[in-house]
């Protein structure tokens, strides 16, 4: 029974983290492409900033993935 709850917990962590990351990076990418469309010569600079921002937006969802995977694989068995 507790294993079932752990599986559900792991699944929720992975799923909701993924949803948050997808929405955030989707909005960021949309603005990035918009910026390129307005000023194609700024492509290099915008790309650098895009990756920096992506690292920040991705941070909490990736922590959620790390903890979710840990729960699913290391806590469930033992």
């Amino acid at each position, binding site marked *: 029974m507790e294993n079932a709850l752990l599986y559900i917990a792991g699944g929720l962590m992975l799923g909701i983290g993924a949803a948050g990351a997808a929405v955030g990076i989707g909005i960021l990418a949309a603005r990035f492409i918009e910026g390129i469309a307005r000023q194609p010569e700024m492509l290099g600079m915008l790309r650098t900033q895009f*990756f*920096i921002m*992506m*690292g*920040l937006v*991705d*941070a*909490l969802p*990736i*922590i*959620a*993935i*790390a*903890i979710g*995977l*840990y729960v699913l*694989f*290391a806590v*469930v*068995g*033992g």
Partner: protein
Amino acid sequence: MAAEEQLTSTGYIQHHLQNLTFGMHPEHGLGIAHGAQEAKDMGFWAIHLDTMFWSIFLGGLFLWVFRKAARTVSSDVPSGFQNFIEVVIEFIDNNCRETFTSKNNLVAPIALTLFVWILLQNVMDLVPVDWIPSLAGLIGIPYMKVVPTTDPNATFGMSLSVFALMIYYSIKVKGAGGFFGELAFQPFPKWMFPVNLFLEGISLISKPVSLSLRLFGNLYAGEMIFILIALMYSGGFFFGVFGGALQWAWAMFHLLIVLLQAFIFMILTIVYLDMAHQHH
């Protein structure tokens, strides 16, 4: 891997996620833990020997390489090695110039150290999962995690040091009263200072915590996926080959993550130190 236990998937994963812990066990005394439960029983003051060894070794390697480059510098005929080191230094220099607006001679060396050291530690994640722990097992070391940044102790150590520097420079540039004023008297009017303190306090504490956990989370998730794909090697020939291909693909992606996370740690450190130097 341990010969006594039956090797299950969960056992393999848990074995690879366990650090080499040295501490005072309530029953067995001072020694190395032989299992996750023993490691937990050792309490807060137990030391992860593998994290300490690899992070200090890689730090020493970084210092040795850069010192060697500095010693053999030549303006007429720069060697390829010297060019490479110069590219790295110019990269850090440009980032510092663009982001840091005050005058402080310590910021660029801090940025260089953080970037190269974290990059070296992260790159250890690309070594195939079983190689180094198997070699260590041959000489009797039960557990070995080679990536120091998958240990939250290491990442918190770095980010708390950055936090200490932030507070030191804030008080040095703005004075203790100015620093407290910045926390207590904005953004709301002065008489609402408990609210201000609460908001600004959370914002202040979230900086080192998020800095450390961002690096830890990314590297831990990457290492976890490497271990999970490595499980495929025990499933016969086809699974083995497929697992090899998957490891390769994930390693390509992880290389980007590794570089990016080192870069983000460095940039955020420069930004926080810049904020500590700002008057307004």
